[in-house]
């Protein structure tokens, strides 16, 4: 579907934007070794000489005492993670087929250094099918029974900012790890993270409400925060 291609691009852009915003923290445990073929991208994350993002592979990872090792879901758990965090399990064969087709691009053991463009695109492709299933399921429900899209008029042509924030917030609460903004105080999504997704949805232009809703879901599930453990 042409619109799904657009959604996948949005998801990828959001992923990249979110990874830039957050990877400093995620990679705080990483140090670039000399002669490793890596260049500093500024901050604590590094890019390989071929341009791919590299938080160091597990093989040459240099751990820092006292810091949590970032990790992502393994390829066996990509779909399980989406189903589990959204609590939605009634997926279609199209979603399963999408996962099977892209299986080879996912991380076998969940190491952060396995993140590359193929993985990002693959997760986004699976997420867009999954989110379409979720949207279809909730569209058939009464508003009161919906979990994520209770404020979305699926027959409408646009989403208000209030609706946008509501939907983003639901997915963030379900699938993202909250950020500690001060000692003992957590936010499910920071204002910067929310703005990134808002901007990308706005960039979609004049598409119907359902597609925007699917796009928000896709961006949330396929972001680094969406696949981090």
């Amino acid at each position, binding site marked *: 579907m042409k619109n799904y291609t657009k959604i996948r691009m949005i998801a990828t852009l959001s992923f990249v934007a979110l990874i830039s915003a957050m990877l400093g923290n995620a990679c705080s445990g990483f140090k670039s070794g000399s002669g490793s073929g890596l260049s500093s991208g500024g901050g604590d994350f590094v890019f390989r000489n071929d341009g791919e993002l590299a938080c160091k592979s597990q093989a040459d990872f240099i*751990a820092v005492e006292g810091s949590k090792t970032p990790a992502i879901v393994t390829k066996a758990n990509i779909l399980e993670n989406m189903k589990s965090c959204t*609590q939605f399990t009634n997926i279609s064969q199209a979603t399963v087929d999408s996962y099977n087709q892209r299986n080879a691009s996912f991380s076998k053991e969940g190491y952060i250094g396995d993140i590359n463009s193929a993985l990002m695109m693959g997760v986004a492709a699976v997420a867009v099918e999954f989110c379409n299933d979720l949207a279809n399921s909730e569209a058939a429900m009464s508003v009161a029974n919906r979990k994520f899209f209770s404020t979305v008029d699926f027959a409408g042509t646009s989403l208000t900012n209030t609706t946008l924030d509501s939907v983003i917030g639901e997915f963030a609460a379900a699938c993202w*790890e909250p950020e500690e903004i001060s000692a003992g105080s957590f936010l499910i999504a920071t204002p910067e993270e929310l703005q990134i997704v808002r901007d990308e949805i706005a960039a979609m232009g004049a598409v119907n409400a359902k597609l925007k809703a699917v796009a928000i879901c896709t961006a949330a599930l396929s972001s680094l925060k969406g696949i981090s453990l």
Partner: protein
Amino acid sequence: MKSLSNKICARSEQKFNKLLCVTVLLLITMTAYKAHSLDIEGNGTEAEREGLVALYLFNETSGSTVNDSITAGGQLNLTIDNPSAVVWGGGALEISAATAVRSAVATKVINACKASNEITIEAWIESRTQNDLALDAYGPARILTLSNGITKADRTPASGGFFIGQNYDAGHQYSFGINTTTRLNRNEIVTEGALLETDSSDRSIVTHNTRQHIYFTKNKEGLAKIYIDDKFGVPILRTQMSLPNSSLANLSDTFTLTLANEPKYQSDSGLTLLRDTVPNIADRTIEDKDWRGKYYMLAVYCKALSETQILGSRAPTDWLTADVNTEELDVTKPITSKRMLARQIYSRLVGYNIPIYHSTLQQMEDALSTDANNIENRMRAAAIATSKPGFYNRTVKDFAKKMSNRDETVDVPLNDFAATVVGATRDSIDARDLLRGDFYYRADTSKAAVPSDLINDLLISNRHYESVEMLNYDLQRVLIKQNGQSLYNGMNSTVPAANYDAAGLLTSRAFLGAHAIAGTNRRLVEFSFQVFMCREITQWADNTAPDSYVGRDVDRFPTGSHPKYQTSCRGCHGQMDALRGAFARITFETGFVKHAWVVNQDAETNPDEANNNENISTMVQVPRGISGKMNKNNTMFEQGKVTEDSSWINYANRGANELYFGWKPDTLQGRGIKDFGNMIAESKAFAHCMTERVFQSVCKRKPASFDAPVIQRVTDKFKGEDTYSLRKLFERMAVQPECLGE
């Protein structure tokens, strides 16, 4: 049920008398599964008959009519073209010569299946082999077809519906073809991807000259499946495929339902015969698709029977749904540090995330109680996470898979090694028994419809475990411990032999399949140390160890230099060769583990040919009772050690090796694999290695030097109060501050 038993026993080959037959069958059926579809006599509930459009029970005793038991929409009776080609009896119709058994235009089937776009054919049949019949066939012989022939009057391909066929060339293969636009020849159906076939290389799937229960289904999404009963009467999914362009909307209103042939075969003189002579097969045409065999029951549904309807209690369930929280989440509650801690422990143990407001996280938060830093409180929270299916189906499974193959990758199918580790973790079995116990884990056949013949599906193939994984069965639920490992003698027997030297994972098919192929069985020692004690051979090489056990195949003067042997070869071989005697009686070849006490000795007496043996029923043994590979290349240094039994001695017990491995003193020599496994199990290094591996699994990195204290601390608990429970090891490691990044 009794009438069913009578029906079956009446057709028995008189191995039992009828009373005994009925009694046995009643006993079997008391424990048999109950699917949710019809029985062989067509009995079923209203729900089980939903979508049924035609039903043939073959209860007639004579004549040329097969009656349709479904009167709704009009009976679609079948007429036997050549009554002399069939034999009635015992509730079955036997096709003994070329004929066709066909209906008038099958309007009710066509209309109903076009409307639903789904179909299921359920049949109890008995097939024959090509050898049985001396039959020359071209393409799948038709068990059932909905069509009006292969070609039109102008010799172009005719429109087709579907067919169920048996490929006589392969013999051991059924096929299910659906063609919705124009009738394609068989090659085109294959290239178009509209033909589903069972695996012809697996000769256990299609049995001949015995009754078998089969299902062919296609749902509206185009997913087609073939289920065939195994020898225990359990339907097993044999193959499935997403068929392209699988709409039934183009079924022609002229199609007839035909058994045992295509409707325009050559014997039918009433029709215009359209022939394209089949090359090299005289007197047959492309229309001749005659089948031989027996029909006991045939049901046509214009509905795709579900997995639950076909498999009953054995149908796979989505294990993830066990943790789906349907209640409303209270999103107003503040997120606390304890909640965050609970989330982190959960996601690292289970392998995926749940919503921050999930009730499981609430339970874990409650378990952390007033002191979230208390390790015991944390372990109580972790125990909640390890009670979830994801922990076993993902985290432990991957942990185990890595150890089960030479590349230490998770990208291998589930196997007996991994299933045994998962089961032992679930049941908190002492991990040391994984290296010396006489047991393994497999799927409980009352909970999983997977190929389960011990010899065909577990000993000489990995089919059982691959099916469990492919069908996504919940390992936490379906795995069952089996006491007593077995061996196959290669003689095509149906009774396996007991393995009297069973040693848990060390004698698993996966481990031996990875390391006992070819070579000289030194790899078994090398990888036993690497996998279970985390020590590569270069790390425990010791030039000071005695070399009295080094084999005759090791050159003592490599490139003419004895010092080179002393410095480069002796360090590994001195210890490795002394230990490999544990594996002296085994090899892995022709797809299974061969033990010299179980498999006949091959006539070959040259040990250099040991690894070239392709004879399934023999094993090169030189001397008798010893795998020939142990004494190959025996002219390199004739004063070297000759392996004559399974004794071994451990020379990796000096200096740094003694310190690292921490051997238990009375385990340093023995006989066979079990003693060898016990030596490893009782070592300090085993517990330490398992701790390191679990660390890597849940903390997502290899231990660094500064992790030494936490590794030691957790290892001590593993050996002590946690009594070598792998589950507790995972729980304890996941809650350590060092693992959580605190």
